[in-house]
């Protein structure tokens, strides 16, 4: 069964791989983009898969936190689907970018030159939230996976579930803000956070139901939730229609009408009937995302090219392949003790209510929460007060969206560090330490970048006097790259251009005055031509000035 599904996944992946390659190679011109918003299928797929990535943790963590734990197998399947969907989802923002190699500029990491991503932008929040969500849900999954053998991990799971609970909802809220903060009329939506969360849970439930069908399992409580959510989605779509007049028959039919078939006994009790409903929901939600992302394309069928379809196929194939390969590999670890063959019915009564989560959930959380709160506070104070090279003003509301991810990340790692450290082997420990050191060095190198001494007074007008016109020209035209001492200004140059030559005396000698004048006037490689902006006499003066600068230094 799994082998068959793995083959299907691989086939879809291969079919889509060309489209994926073309998208990476050709950039955004490869797929269809909306005429007004410039966005297209990768963002819709990102929103869809990140939504699907929520159901797993939601089902597992929130049910656990609220004291309705599901069977181990159900929750492990759900968590694995979270991780796989997340892996699929993070690819698409990268595909979406016009200049993929610049993606690191989105990381909010201040370097010595004061270059910083714009943390007012929801895309930066997105990046951070998803990174944190990925890390925390991977930790949760690993702890859950090994907790049968290591009782010390078992006590971590409930507290971690409480940490994941708000994070899951926060992440999708942030995704919804990508749309809701804009001026695009179709994306007006102060209600988008709830709308997106509902959509994410709805589609995620459908996905988990499909995956459980592959396990020959059925969890009725999830089906009930799915049916209930279909009414909420209908209400949301009604509000969308009232507010903006946008309405898609296909979306509403597949997403809100078809699920009502679950009322019929022969559909509900039939595996294929349930699959039909779940797939219909997934298609509806996928279509809904596409319509939302490309608001000025009403004819979706016409807009779709082979690359768009290929990307869809790629995402589905990658997910299926990842999920079922991991499922087959992890096998017995996932299933735990309740290994069952064939169709089982997990009754609602089976998901027995365990003890009410009491204060003892919070006892191990006290110190991590405190530390998390401290780090968050530090971040807020730093972000609001610092003006380190930032050209934009920050206010509290710009800073808040990153608070919860920081808080949860710190708390979660503090919580898990001890117990996980105890159970890892010696070799893993060494690898971890080396990796951490390597990352530290990398971060340090990135931070320092280069000397960031600004050429003091390079542009201060007062220092120039009319008798020093040549020096004035140097200061105003050349110093921004070459530095006011001729030793180039790394602060400016490193970030935006390749390094210019150091103007040492030997180099000036080897070039000769005439060819230097030629370079100044007509440019060379990255040096801009200045003909028309300065005269030849001034260029000669500049050459003399350069020699003076170089001579002073020797």
């Amino acid at each position, binding site marked *: 069964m799994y082998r068959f599904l793995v083959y299907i996944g691989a086939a879809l992946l291969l079919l889509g791989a060309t489209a994926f390659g073309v998208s990476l190679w050709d950039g955004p011109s490869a797929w269809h983009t909306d005429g007004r918003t410039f966005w297209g299928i990768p963002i819709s797929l990102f929103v869809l898969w990140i939504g699907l990535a929520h159901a797993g943790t939601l089902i597992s963590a929130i049910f656990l936190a609220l004291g309705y734990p599901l069977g181990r197998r159900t929750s492990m399947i759900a968590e694995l689907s979270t991780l796989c969907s997340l892996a699929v989802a993070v690819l698409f923002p990268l595909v979406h970018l016009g200049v993929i190699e610049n993606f690191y500029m989105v990381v909010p990491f201040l370097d010595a030159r004061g270059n910083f991503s714009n943390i007012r932008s929801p895309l930066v929040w997105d990046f951070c939230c998803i990174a944190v969500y990925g890390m925390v849900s991977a930790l949760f999954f690993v702890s859950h996976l090994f907790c049968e053998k290591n009782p010390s991990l078992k006590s971590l799971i409930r507290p971690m579930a409480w940490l994941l609970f708000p994070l899951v*909802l926060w992440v999708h*809220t942030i995704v*919804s*803000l990508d749309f*809701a*903060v*804009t*001026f695009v009329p179709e994306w*007006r*939506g*102060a*209600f*988008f*956070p*709830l709308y997106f969360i509902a959509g994410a849970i709805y589609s995620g439930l459908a996905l988990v139901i499909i995956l459980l069908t592959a396990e020959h399992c059925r969890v009725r*409580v999830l089906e*009930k*939730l799915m*049916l*209930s*959510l279909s*009414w*909420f989605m*209908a*209400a*949301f779509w*009604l*509000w969308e229609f*009232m*507010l903006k007049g946008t309405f898609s028959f296909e979306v509403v039919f597949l997403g809100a009408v078809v699920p009502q078939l679950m009322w019929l006994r022969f559909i509900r009790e039939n595996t294929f009937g349930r699959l039909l409903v779940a797939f219909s929901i997934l298609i509806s939600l996928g279509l809904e995302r596409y319509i939302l992302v490309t608001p000025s394309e009403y004819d979706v069928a016409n807009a779709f090219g082979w690359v768009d379809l290929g990307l869809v196929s790629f995402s589905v194939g990658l997910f299926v392949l990842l999920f079922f390969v991991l499922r087959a590999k992890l096998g017995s670890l996932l299933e735990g003790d309740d290994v069952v063959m064939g169709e089982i019915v997990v009754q609602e009564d089976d998901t027995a209510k365990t003890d*009410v989560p009491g204060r003892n959930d919070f006892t191990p959380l006290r110190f991590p929460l405190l530390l998390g709160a401290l780090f968050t506070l530090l971040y807020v104070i730093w972000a609001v007060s610092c003006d380190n090279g930032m050209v934009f003003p920050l206010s509290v*509301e710009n800073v*808040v*969206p990153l608070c919860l991810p920081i808080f949860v990340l710190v708390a979660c790692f503090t919580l898990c560090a001890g117990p996980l450290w105890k159970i890892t082997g010696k070799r893993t420990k060494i690898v971890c330490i080396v990796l951490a050191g390597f990352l530290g060095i990398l971060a340090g190198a990135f931070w320092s970048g280069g000397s960031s001494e600004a050429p003091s007074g390079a542009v201060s007008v007062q220092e120039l006097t009319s008798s020093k016109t040549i020096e004035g020209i140097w200061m105003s035209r050349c110093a921004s790259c070459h530095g006011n001492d001729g030793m180039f200004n790394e602060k400016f140059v490193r970030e935006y251009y390749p390094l210019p030559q150091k103007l040492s005396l030997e180099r000036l000698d080897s070039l000769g005055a005439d060819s230097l004048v030629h370079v100044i006037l007509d440019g060379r490689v990255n040096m801009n031509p200045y003909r028309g902006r300065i005269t030849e006499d001034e260029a000669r003066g500049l050459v003399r000035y350069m020699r003076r600068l170089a001579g002073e230094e020797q």
Partner: protein
Amino acid sequence: MDAILNALSCLMALGTSMFLWRKPLNVYKEAGILALFLVVFALFSYFTMDASDLAQEYMPFRMLAVCLCFSTTSLTSHKSRYLVFAQVLWLWVEFFGGLTFVYRGLDMPWTRVIAIGSGALGGVFLSHISREMEFMLMVYWIAIWMFF
């Protein structure tokens, strides 16, 4: 939106909250009622509010959130937990709704956000909720809705 309609919307939320969590509890019943309320609130907001008023966008959801807040007072078990959850939901709607308005040129309703936030934070430390306390909380919520 003028004060009378605002009061009416609060009253609607209060009135509808009476229908929630009646025994016997059933997923379909509660979800159906909530979805129906959402539709009613949406129709109410659509017909009473001006389309140029940005606040119309999230009005039904604010009403739903405050309705859930009111309804938690009638719960029999886990009252304080769901009290906190309902207020956090309200805070969520107000804060992120406000955040989208900040980017579209309005100011953040900080007093309201802080008032709801402190209510939720206070709820965390409540172990026992008496009838008087419930009444005070309801008055507090109505005050937030009406005046902040």
